[in-house]
């Protein structure tokens, strides 16, 4: 019997594909987001509202991960983004290879920003890198203020947090202080936006910030290319 040291990350194959996706995006100068949330938090609504507000300024692509339908892609296409659908066929999350195939179907040379909508799930998507530049979590008020405590992996692993449906705060039990305390423990200093896709409250700050991220990214790419 011989012992062989391995010390290899179990996700290494996916991570490799994610790195290839990132290289492909960077070669085209396209900034990309991985939007994750529980079902019903408002991922599609946020993407829809974001596309509507940015469509005149940026060229947008959307990759929709959905279990079986193309409803979400139809919504984001109508809002003004080139949209492709990945039907995961029951898979609970997107994986690097699915996004690789979807990127091949997008006209990357003609885009500035690609938004990937992951499958609605607060567990599995956090484990699979896609190659995007930012991981955005959409939380929503009706889900309850205990979610950071119940899904620490997801809250620990994202770069930006959007708290949606703040128009419902007067009607549901949601202790914003408790929610934010849990987030701060898991992800100190996390960039956070509180908004409502229904009323539009807070959306401008989010969209302005996102456009800035794209501008900074493009400036960095241009600098690197010189």
């Amino acid at each position: 019997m011989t012992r062989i040291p391995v010390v290899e990350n179990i996700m290494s194959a996916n991570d490799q594909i994610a790195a290839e996706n990132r290289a492909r995006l960077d070669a085209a100068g396209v900034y990309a987001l991985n939007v994750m949330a529980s079902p019903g938090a408002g991922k599609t609504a946020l993407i829809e509202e974001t596309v509507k507000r940015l469509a005149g300024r940026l060229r947008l692509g959307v990759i929709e991960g959905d279990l079986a339908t193309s409803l979400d892609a139809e919504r984001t296409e109508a809002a003004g983004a080139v949209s492709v659908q990945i039907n995961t066929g029951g898979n609970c999350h997107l994986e690097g290879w699915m996004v690789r195939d979807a990127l091949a179907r997008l006209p990357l040379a003609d885009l500035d920003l690609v938004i990937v909508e992951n499958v609605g799930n607060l567990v599995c998507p956090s484990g699979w890198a896609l190659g995007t530049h930012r991981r955005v979590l959409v939380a929503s008020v009706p889900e309850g203020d205990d979610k950071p405590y119940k899904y620490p992996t997801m809250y620990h692993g994202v770069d930006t947090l959007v708290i949606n449906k703040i128009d419902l705060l007067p009607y549901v039990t949601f202790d914003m202080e408790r929610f934010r305390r849990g987030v701060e423990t898991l992800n100190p200093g996390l960039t956070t936006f509180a908004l409502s896709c229904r009323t539009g409250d807070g959306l401008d700050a989010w969209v302005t910030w996102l456009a800035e991220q794209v501008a900074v990214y493009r400036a960095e790419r241009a600098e690197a290319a010189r």
Partner: protein
Amino acid sequence: MHELPVTQSILNIVVRHAEQAGAARITDIRLVIGQLSSIVDDSVQFYWDMIAAGTIAEGARLHFQRVPAQMQCQACGAAFALAASADFACPQCGSSDVRVTGGEEFYVESIDVETA
């Protein structure tokens, strides 16, 4: 459930390392899994028995070393496990100024093989 692709990934990794070493059979596999990596041991074992069949890893024993999600209190310095506290508050001083310091491990540590 994402245990199936994870189990497939473990199989790919161990077979590659075993073949590089010229091994004929894998008998044991040690996995280090942090609490923040959402994987159910029993599920991995279940899929393992199916997908490892017919490979040099068939019948290999999976050993899961679980690493708890460690927290550290920024106020008093106490270290404690994530599950041990309500709302992540420090069990020693009650402060909510705590940070996650571990639990993201997710790798194949080593394998035991027979060479002939």
